[in-house]
């Protein structure tokens, strides 16, 4: 009897005495922020986490910058999608559009991850070599500045945090002026640049990571955003004078995997990488650009007529001033970047559209002559070496009239306006599992940034034309000579369009040049409706904006779309409503 009593008393006593310890439970499979980031290995792991938040995609697999490009005058998106609705302006851009929301969320995720790292790594400052510590911190500083650069460009003044906020702080944050944030970013990027120098970080340490060149390049871009041309010129000049970077002799090599891996000239300074060692995520830029006459799949992103007409002829003249431009054969005698950037009717396209060969037309690679004018596909027969005419063409613009139904019901767009993307059409790997990287910063952009800053400062000298001509020369375009500020400005703006189309720079360019409203308000038209009736050549204004009113009836229309972005509110995106709902101190942008 006694035995049982003793057992009870002793176990009860144990429970009482051990209570504090019993309730002290820490997660078993994770590390606490109070102790983590205490040594170099942990800091490097935390830094990877910051980089991870720098992978900005829409619907997982479309690079965000590429989607945003479709809201500008250079590109089109299949109707009904967020980027298409932004492009439509008055006819579609509602305050609850999902793209600004995704962009806001992605940028702040990056900012706060960087804040976690920058503040958290102080836990282990004493344990890590100072140069290494500063280099790790520098990478986080650059990534945070990358986040704020985009937030400022998209939304203007935004809530500003240099450390992870507490609940109360984040619910009561107000908007900090762009000038204040930009001034801080200058300092952060200078600190980062010095730290990379001290740590001996190479010019391109590893593709996908940031370094001194990116720090300076980003500083130049932030300076351009606030039109601080002096700082932009100085920062971009420092990159040029550093001599670490050069242009890749091959423009197309920038946009396929082997070319990116080789990175000749180290032109690619910062790139969004896609993992080759796991299946997802993939870069869907090629998939969504392949025309349906190749794969039957749903091409959804298209280049615009506005973009096509920015490309000069081979003598360096805009098409309205060209002696060699032929409206009946607009793809001929043009800046080579036209073909490298997009396919026009008559171009021979190459796609890697099947994982296994399906002969006779697919030998992994598939060659097709882009055709929108008849119900045939012109395919290269690998068995016979001849070109065959194959009946049935989903891109045929007469399909709707002929009662072939799915083309309008599924996408409604009949292959854009007669053009499809070739840039980033990486034919070295299977299109549907493409891992080609998306370039976020490259040297050509730095050269053009330098030139633009100097032109705006009206300090036009040989270094300005030198920078522009280096970019032009790679494409085989003739050099430009010193000219007036106005003439060079027009040329520079055209150069940025044709060099960087599809790479996500256009929105910021148009806003900086104060021509977003004008450039992005038009009837969406495209290639000739009938190849036998060449449309009239458009006229251009001083900002290279084409006017198609004389040829509108000769051209393909894009579902009768009319873009109307004349309202000044489109200079900035609306702050996501849920942010304002959660924090009444946050004000909305004017007009939204």
């Amino acid at each position, binding site marked *: 009897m006694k035995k049982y009593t003793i057992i*009870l008393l002793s176990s009860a006593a144990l429970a*009482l005495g051990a209570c504090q310890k019993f309730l002290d439970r820490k997660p078993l499979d994770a590390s606490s922020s109070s102790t983590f980031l205490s040594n170099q290995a942990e800091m490097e792991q935390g830094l990877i986490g910051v980089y991870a938040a720098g992978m900005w995609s829409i619907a997982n697999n479309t690079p965000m910058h590429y989607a945003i490009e479709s809201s500008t005058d250079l590109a089109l998106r299949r109707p009904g999608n967020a980027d298409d609705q932004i492009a439509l302006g008055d006819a579609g851009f509602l305050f609850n559009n999902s793209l600004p929301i995704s962009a806001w969320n992605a940028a702040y995720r990056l900012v706060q991850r960087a804040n976690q790292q920058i503040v958290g790594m102080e836990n282990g400052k004493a344990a890590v070599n100072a140069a290494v510590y500063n280099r790790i911190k520098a990478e986080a500083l650059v990534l945070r500045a990358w986040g704020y650069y985009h937030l400022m460009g998209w939304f203007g003044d935004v809530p500003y945090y240099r450390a992870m906020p507490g609940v109360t702080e*984040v619910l009561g944050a107000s908007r900090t002026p762009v000038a204040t944030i930009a001034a801080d970013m200058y300092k952060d990027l200078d600190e980062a640049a010095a730290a990379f120098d001290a740590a001996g970080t190479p010019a391109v340490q590893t593709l996908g990571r940031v370094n001194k060149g990116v720090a300076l390049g980003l500083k130049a871009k932030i300076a351009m955003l606030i039109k601080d041309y002096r700082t932009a010129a100085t920062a971009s000049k420092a990159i040029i004078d550093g001599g670490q970077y050069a242009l890749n002799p091959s423009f197309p090599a920038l946009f396929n995997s082997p070319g990116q891996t080789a990175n000749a000239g180290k032109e690619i300074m910062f790139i969004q990488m896609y*993992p080759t*060692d796991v299946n997802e995520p993939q870069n869907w830029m090629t998939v969504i650009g392949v025309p349906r006459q190749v794969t039957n799949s749903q091409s959804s992103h298209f280049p615009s007529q506005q973009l096509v007409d920015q490309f000069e002829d081979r003598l360096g003249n805009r098409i309205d001033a060209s002696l060699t431009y032929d409206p009946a054969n607009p793809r001929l005698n043009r800046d080579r970047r036209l073909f490298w950037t997009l396919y026009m009717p008559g171009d021979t396209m190459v796609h890697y559209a099947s994982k296994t060969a399906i002969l006779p037309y697919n030998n992994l690679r598939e060659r097709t002559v882009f055709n929108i004018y008849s119900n045939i596909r012109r395919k290269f027969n690998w068995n016979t070496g001849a070109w065959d005419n194959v009946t049935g063409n989903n891109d045929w613009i007469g399909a709707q009239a002929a009662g072939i139904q799915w083309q309008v019901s599924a996408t409604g767009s009949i292959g854009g306006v007669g053009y499809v993307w070739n840039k980033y059409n990486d034919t070295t790997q299977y299109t549907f599992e493409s891992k080609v990287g998306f370039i976020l910063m490259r040297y050509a952009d730095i050269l053009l940034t330098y030139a633009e800053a100097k032109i705006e400062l009206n300090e036009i000298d040989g270094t300005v034309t030198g920078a522009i001509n280096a970019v032009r020369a790679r494409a085989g375009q003739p050099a430009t000579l010193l000219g007036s500020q106005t003439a060079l400005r027009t040329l520079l703006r055209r150069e940025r369009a044709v060099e960087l189309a599809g790479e996500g720079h256009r929105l910021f360019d148009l806003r900086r040049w104060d021509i977003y409203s004008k450039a992005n308000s038009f009837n969406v038209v495209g290639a000739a409706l009938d190849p036998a009736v060449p449309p009239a050549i458009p006229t251009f204004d001083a900002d290279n904006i084409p006017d198609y009113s004389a040829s509108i009836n000769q051209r393909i229309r894009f579902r009768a779309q009319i873009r109307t972005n004349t309202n000044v509110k489109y200079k900035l995106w609306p702050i996501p409503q849920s942010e304002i709902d959660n924090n009444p101190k946050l004000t909305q942008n004017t007009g939204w």
Partner: protein
Amino acid sequence: MQNHNVQLNAGGEKMNLFGSFTYLNQQGLIQNSAFQKYDLRLNPEFKVSDKLKLIGVLAYTNTITTNPSTGSAEFIIRQAIGLPAIGGGKFGPGMYGNAGQSNNRNPIAMAEATGNSVSKGNTLLTRFGFNLRPIDGLEVEGYWGRQTTNPTTKTWVTNADIYTPNLTTSSYTLVGTWPGTTSLSESYTNNVYTTYLGQATYTKRFGAHTVKALVGGQSELFTNYFFGASRQGFVNPNQPYLNLGSGTRDNNAGASELALAGFFARINYSYDDKYFVELNGRRDGTSRFSQARNKQWGNFGAVSAGWIFTKENFLKTILPYVSYGKLRASIGGNGNQNIGNNYAYDAFYSQSNYSNPINGTNAYFGGTTNLGLALLQFANPELSWETSKQWNIGLDVQVFKHFTVSADYYVKTLKNMLLQRTLPQSAGGLTNPFVNAGNMENKGWELSVNYKNQFGKLGVDVTGMISDVKNKVLNLVEGTPFIGDGIRTAPGEALGSYFGYVSAGYFSDSNDVKNSPVQFGQAWNASPTVGSKPGDVKYADTNGDGKIDANDRVFIGNSFPRYEYSININLTYGNWDMNIFGQGVGQRNNYLSGTGAVPFNSADFAASLLDIHKDYWRPDNQNATFPRLLPSGSGGNNFLLASQWIRSAAYFRIKNISVGYTVPKQWLNKAKISNIRIYVSASNLLTLSKAWKGFDPEINSANAEFYPLMRTYTAGVNVTF
């Protein structure tokens, strides 16, 4: 469906054993959907002496749950309902049609041809305890218990072949496979719950006074561990073994713990079995809150009193028709720490795969994926107990011999209620933190009436119940409301109320659009695709600023049920018995979106229009239920969260009717059977509600993605030996 149950009770002087065995087998509505359960229970009791009993519990449960692997039954059923008439279903064995959905997805193939997910649950409960009565009036009890559950899940995804009709050749063309990637994933989980309990009760009666005192303590520890592995790329759909996969491999694991400790004491006092008083106190600790900040412990207490007034002689003459009556009152508090998250008080670094780019922590450099870490959860170190204070008065009476009435009124106030705070995304998109948000009040009452009588062979037993509770948030610490997806929590409103626009009918014609406040910054525009058109929802300018924007949103209801009632009727006549059970809700709002609101709604590609959607706006149908008909995805502003889409979910439902017959004893004696009852029953026979046809008013699912309510007919026999 099958359900079998066997029970056994064997007793002796020293030992007592209770045993039961249950088997349940239930087939779901669609293929690859089933539930199976075995349950075995043994309760032995040893009488060591007059003063000491040893008590054991041994229970084992085995469950097997099967579901389609590529989508929930709810999703598949909804997709099947929404399949457009032109979408191909199934052309023949193994030949599924291109149903017009995303990437050749086909709901029939999902249900029957793309593999299944089988979860097996093994639960073993062991408990060992004693009951000791060392001296008269003192009872000491204690036990140690452990419940181990080991669920395993095996999810097997195979490909189905998708075809389209080829009109030229009058055959079918293979267009692809769905889902395209075969995979197998297996997981193993080990959950262990260990508890110790010890308590002592002393009861003493002297004269008309009875005193009962109890002290005790309990500790509980929950531990969880799991690991899982998966591979892709299987060739043979009949060989679901990981070693055969040739594609991507993955594996993961995790572990967590939760510890709770509590001490409690209670004193009951009663006088003459007429007056009752109880005092109650407890101190509870939880590992869920910060030990460093001393947030783990909470103290709670309660007082209650009761008075059986029918024992008072002076009332017996005043209330002769009241045969029993008791008045009750209580006031007291309780604590709550149950927030699901075991470590909300601190921020922890975790790893997350690419597959979720929103929270991924991996990055690819130098030809390899580098595993990174990040804080994915917003921490709140100040988190502590939510406390509730409740007062209650109640009355139980039996009147006119056959009526029993019970009534209660209570007010429950929650202080520092635990809520997950939605933060702006500028906080970094981390999992939202739990906070001690503020105070909330629930005021409610309950009434139940029972009538029981026997009229010769006819026995009648009817119970009706009705209750109501009104919820109101009193204040919020941070001041700003809690904002969820279309719902909002703010002082003065019910928790999670709908917050949206007020619909003021439809625009009747273009002049109506021109003369109404500008909707969302878009004035009348002649272009057919721009701005509001006749037949679009006209929103009310609730703040009177002449334009409709986000500032015109107001609280437009909540989904709390009001006036819940039920009725239970039992009738017996000789050997026959009958039961009818019905229940309902008097008032409730359901918000509808998705299929419930939008014609042709589908997350991806083709979908059909439900019958209800035919009542859309036309110039000659101005009072339509739905706005003008537009192609899917181009509804403009018509489907914003607005009063238009708040529908009544009040209902009354006959849940169950059963009729039974008990075989007369004299027929059974020879077979040594003591009782046989044969019965038939039907469930969900009738529902009265205003919900759309096919929508279940009991389920608050806006997009009609729920398991359809089944009308079930059952026949059974109970045999007692």
